[in-house]
């Protein structure tokens, strides 16, 4: 138990929780505007591959990061246009995008790196120390620019909703499109803008995964996009609460990694831990949540 209260555990929790957090902010942008977004999963995956291809071809991880964001935005725009202009069902479009991302990344992996499973390794935005002590791990996580980019995602999201014209319009369009339109707000333009923000955030989440593991591996998002979406819903579509849900989940997953080599509990039970803890924490702390009234209606 004492291993829970170490700097290494804290570092590990953050490391696991931050990509969820970035993706969750993406989900909040999209869903607060009324566009259901199950495409976060595929967007993360494409973002991760974008980061790797950008880094290997240019040699600069910063270019890689840029590629990740662009890839995320493009994929989310496809989703947004399909839903808003093509009047596709948002869930169907999201599933299609996830399948496209899974197949497309595998295809690109093979054509760029001639591999079915993973890319060559890439450097991070800054070199990490090889020191494995808890304080060094925490320090390198906190000093990593991608950490601060994720923090920026949430800060900008919170700020935008309360202080910017665009944020206010997103909230209005997701809650009552008729009222927003009557007030002179363009529904489609606002929703597309929100979907671009979702692409930036989810692309960032994908880049985080790639830089954290120094490579791209096939299907590396591993359901994180869906968990982020669950955090959005459980957090009542509010940035702060969703971020909290993501961090709880990250901590629970870190604990699971700590305990999985302990033989006094069956590892199947240990593996359930993140989900159980998150469910309990969210049910207890957050209570009932109410979705944006116009979510999924267009």
């Amino acid at each position, binding site marked *: 138990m004492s291993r829970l209260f170490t700097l290494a555990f804290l570092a590990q929790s953050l490391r696991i929780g931050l990509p969820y957090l970035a993706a969750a902010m993406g989900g909040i942008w999209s869903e607060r505007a009324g566009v259901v977004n199950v495409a976060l999963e595929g967007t993360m995956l494409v973002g991760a591959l974008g980061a790797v291809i950008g880094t290997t071809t240019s040699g600069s991880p910063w270019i890689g990061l840029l590629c990740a964001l662009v890839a995320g935005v493009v994929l989310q725009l496809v989703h947004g246009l399909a839903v808003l202009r093509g009047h596709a069902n948002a869930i169907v479009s999201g599933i299609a995008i996830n399948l496209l991302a899974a197949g497309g990344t595998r295809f690109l992996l093979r054509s760029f790196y001639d591999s079915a499973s993973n890319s060559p390794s890439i450097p991070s935005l800054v070199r990490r120390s090889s020191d494995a002590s808890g304080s060094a791990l925490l320090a390198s996580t906190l000093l990593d620019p991608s950490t601060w980019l994720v923090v920026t995602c949430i800060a900008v999201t919170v700020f935008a909703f309360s202080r910017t014209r665009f944020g206010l319009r997103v909230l*209005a369009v997701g809650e*009552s499109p008729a009222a927003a339109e009557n007030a002179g707000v363009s529904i489609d333009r606002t929703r597309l803008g929100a979907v671009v923000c979702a692409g930036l955030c989810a692309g960032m989440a994908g880049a985080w995964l790639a830089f954290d593991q120094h490579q791209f591996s096939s299907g590396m998002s591993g359901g994180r996009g869906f968990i982020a979406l669950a955090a959005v819903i459980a957090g009542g579509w509010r940035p702060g609460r969703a971020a909290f849900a993501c961090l709880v989940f990250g901590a629970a997953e870190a604990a699971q990694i700590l305990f999985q080599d302990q033989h006094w509990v069956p590892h199947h039970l240990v593996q359930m831990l993140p989900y159980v803890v998150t469910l309990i924490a969210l049910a207890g702390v957050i209570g009932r949540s109410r979705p944006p009234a116009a979510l999924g209606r267009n």
Partner: protein
Amino acid sequence: MKAMQAMKAMQAMQAMQAMDALVELSAVTKTFGSGAGAVRALDDVGLVLRAGSVHAIVGENGAGKSTLLKVAAGVVVADGGRVDVFGTPLVPATPREAIRRGVGMVHQHFMLVPTLTGLQNLALGFEPTKHGLLDFAPLAAQVAALQKELDLPVRIDVPVGTLSVGEQQRLEILRVLLRVAGGGRGRVVILDEPTAVLAPSEAAMVLELARRLAREGAAVALVTHRLDEVAKFADEVTTMRRGRVVAHHPPGDAAVRDAALLAQEALGDTGVSTMSPPQAADESSPVVFAMEEVDAEDEAAGRITGVTLRVHAGEIVGIAGVEGNGQRALELVAAGLLRPSRGRIELDGADVTRMLVRERRARGLAFIAGDRHRYGLAEELPAADVIRLGGLGEVSTGPGASLVDERALERAFTDAAAAFDIRPIDASLAAGAFSGGNQQKIVVARELRTRRGAVPRLVLAAHPTRGVDARVARMIRDALTSVAARGGGLLIISSDLAELRALSHRIVVLRGGTVVAELRADASDDQLGAAMMGGETGREAHA
């Protein structure tokens, strides 16, 4: 002699033109839908809104009043005809452009985002910014000044969803005035049934405001069903029937003050609604519905505390009160949609406190919900399905009545359509596609139907004639009284005091969620007002 008349006519024409025509619609047509189900909402209609004039548009439900004004406000695009605003065509025909030119509309269904604050709603679409960030301070100051000038009390710092209907409407009016105030060219304010959902004092406030705006040079268009309002507040009147203009009475025409004449024009020759006072009820007849010391609370619906009331067989009990004093909670508790935290509810002698709506319905409850869209109709379903919603068993056959007899269902609709004059008689049309008045007729027809020859034991009706025209209102009231005549009890919640008085044997007044008075139907306005407002007299209380 003829020359004299021509001169006079010329002078009149010139006088008319001197009154600034701010909005001019001519030969406007609009058809909704296509093919056999197409509805011609506007058929070659003209309308002029002049500076300084309150122009009332009257007519039955579905006559095209709202559609016409929506065309003027750029909300609905006409199929044909001209829309001129300040002398130039309204292009593009969008609400934004109309607002830019100085034409604003307050819709019948409020166009507010319930989760945003009043101030945020006022800002939406035209947000004031400083260095790229929202800056509400100047807007707040502007709003405060306007509120003071016009005496329009609204809280603008709380989510709109928590405001009363009256407050929401004042917020809408504030917004329109803020938007269209620019340029000093006068402005056009369109009010679509502004008083339909308001308590009398709030309605008076809005109408006084309309008059004041006109005095200051605005053109005000007013859609209403209440002809007494027209006679009192309008300068000119246009009557519409089935998508056409029947008559236009310019300012100064005596017909503007003649409610009976206007009613005849609007309704054709079907006559005017007259309300006759009810026969006294038999107090010794059995109690069909009782609430004993009931407490209940709901975030949206409000609160009632210690409410006790009884309805006898054949008796009509009215619930009066200023909007937002617990009527909604009472309605939901009586229907079984809100569980009381204390007390006991009896229906036809049985304790139904913990029973669901379905179980209460099985015991003879009929429920005409105040919120028709939420509780009354499934708007996407065809009217035939809606006419037996919750009672499909009555039109089913097969083992255990498991198969719906489509033909019987359709017959049920056509019967109801004949009895209540529901238009169009199209059983396959989605319930939501009927006009508001016809939707209400569908609900009333369903709820008041006899089941196996028996009338409902209790009819719970909230605002049964809200937003419907005089003829439909009378039809609905007649249907309600006939239930009482056949031994059913009625509990009617309404903000229309004249209606309550005409229908009820007794009026129970709610204030702050408790029963503060129980009056006979012939109680005076002042007595009722005092009970509702809590002051010495109603007049003083709202001044």
